[in-house]
């Protein structure tokens, strides 16, 4: 009987793992199957054409813009906030409240952020429907992610490193820069990767703040269309599943490439210490 229970549990565990991998493979497989026929250099590097047959280069550029701008703002702000909360702030009611707030922020549906961005950045700050409005909205979306993961990464740095450094007569700031942050780097980086995924995957909030102009953006103040928004619109407007799937392939490849790049950088950073 005990043996049976054991096997049953093992079977369930195996089934859960299998199901997860299977779903992933089916989705990726289906998207590749549907979309791979459209993928060629013209499709990726070509300009958009409203009559069909054009490329998605403007959307790729727009997507990269949003990633870069939001991360350039969110990463330093998020890391500074996390360092303050974890290393400097007196652990009390206020800090608990800030933590609770950041945790709650991660759970809010992105359309809400989109509405806020549309009112605040687009209208109140008169930035218009633009890449910058969308990027700032995305910054708010990923900020709590970066804060949480950085805090967790800082927590894993052994207290003995801190003590060792302080006992050698270095200041708190030196300890932070030379010992704590480098040790926490892999964790911080994984938070940034996670954020990149969220930015690339976001559509509702961008739709409301950057608009849908399907042309190469002239700058960060022009309205533009990211890959996910484009994919949504082509499915919605023309029911072109193949095209949407082809965009999906580009998105998947982009995310994979960024993950590899981040892991590579993280390894390089670690090696630099030795």
């Amino acid at each position, binding site marked *: 009987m005990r043996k049976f229970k054991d096997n049953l549990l093992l079977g369930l565990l195996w089934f859960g793992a299998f199901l997860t991998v299977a779903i992933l493979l089916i989705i990726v497989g289906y998207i590749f199957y549907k979309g791979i026929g459209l993928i060629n250099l013209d499709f990726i590097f070509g300009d958009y054409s409203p009559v069909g047959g054009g490329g998605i280069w403007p959307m790729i550029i727009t997507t990269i813009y949003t990633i870069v701008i939001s991360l350039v703002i969110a990463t330093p702000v998020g890391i500074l906030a996390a360092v303050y909360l974890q290393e400097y702030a007196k652990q009390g009611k206020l800090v608990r409240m800030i933590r609770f707030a950041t945790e709650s922020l991660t759970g809010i549906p992105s359309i809400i952020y989109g509405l806020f961005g549309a009112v605040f950045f687009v209208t109140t700050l008169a930035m218009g429907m633009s890449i910058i409005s969308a990027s700032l909205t995305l910054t708010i979306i990923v900020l709590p992610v970066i804060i949480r993961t950085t805090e967790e990464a800082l927590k894993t740095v*052994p207290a*003995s*490193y*801190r*003590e060792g450094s302080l*006992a*050698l*007569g270095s*200041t708190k700031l030196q300890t932070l820069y030379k010992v704590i942050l*480098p040790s926490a780097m892999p964790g911080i980086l994984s938070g940034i990767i996670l954020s990149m995924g969220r930015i690339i995957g976001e559509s509702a909030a961008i739709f409301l703040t950057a608009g849908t102009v399907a042309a190469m953006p002239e700058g960060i103040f022009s309205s533009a269309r990211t890959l996910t928004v484009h994919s949504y619109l082509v499915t919605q407007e023309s029911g072109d599943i193949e095209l949407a799937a082809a965009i999906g392939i580009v998105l998947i490849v982009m995310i994979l490439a960024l993950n590899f790049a981040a892991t590579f950088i993280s390894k390089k950073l670690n090696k630099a210490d030795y």
Partner: protein
Amino acid sequence: MNTTLERKEVKESANVEHQNDQRSVKISVRDLDLFYGENQALYQVSLDIREKEVTALIGPSGCGKSTFLRTLNRMNDLIDSVRINGDIHINGNNIYQSKDVIELRTKVGMVFQKPNLFPMSIYDNVAYGPRMQGIKNKKELNKIVEESLRGAAIWDEVKDRLKTSALGLSGGQQQRVCIARAIAMKPDVILMDEPTSALDPISTLKVEELIAHLKKDYTIVIVTHNMQQAARVSDKTAFFLNGEVIEFEQTDQIFSMPKDSRTEDYVTGRFG
């Protein structure tokens, strides 16, 4: 202002206790109380630690010996709830009146219970302290690193792999690099908090030999659980019990003819 006066008094009182003792007092502790929040951990601790001697602190777990050690370089400052009354003078300066804890810690080095090298190369670990003090000159750093590693009797073992990760060394080697890292700061005093408790017997022996050697240049205060170790390496021994110093004497006297019956019970292994 009146520190010189106090120092003189301290010296005199110490001289009464140890007539033959010629070494000057390096660290003088008077009426030290320490509280963790509401709980008192040290009661009226007073003792004089002499220059270029090894002073061992012994006692059962939780008796306050590590807490006491950490008052000497103000590592207890890291804990918010710690409160301290009383005076500690090092080189005649009241270390709790001076605001400059950085200066204090460059003069009072520390070696911890477990080797705590940073995840960097051996070289960078030893050069860490001097670099934080603003030494950038490569030649000067090379010299400090070599001298410190030689001083910690580990140079020959690591000289060919200075640029490799310090965490690849054995525990005993790591602990000696920790000692090198501490002496790279050219401190006056080295505090050791059970430095061999995580080491094998052979590494322990090496660290003990090192301590005997270091004593020529440094004042050493060592916390140890191991009474044989205290007997082997130290000149003076302080026996702590429940936050009080029960007896502070020449090491051979503590172990051969302790004055207090509690000391006798502890060193003969009746408790602790």
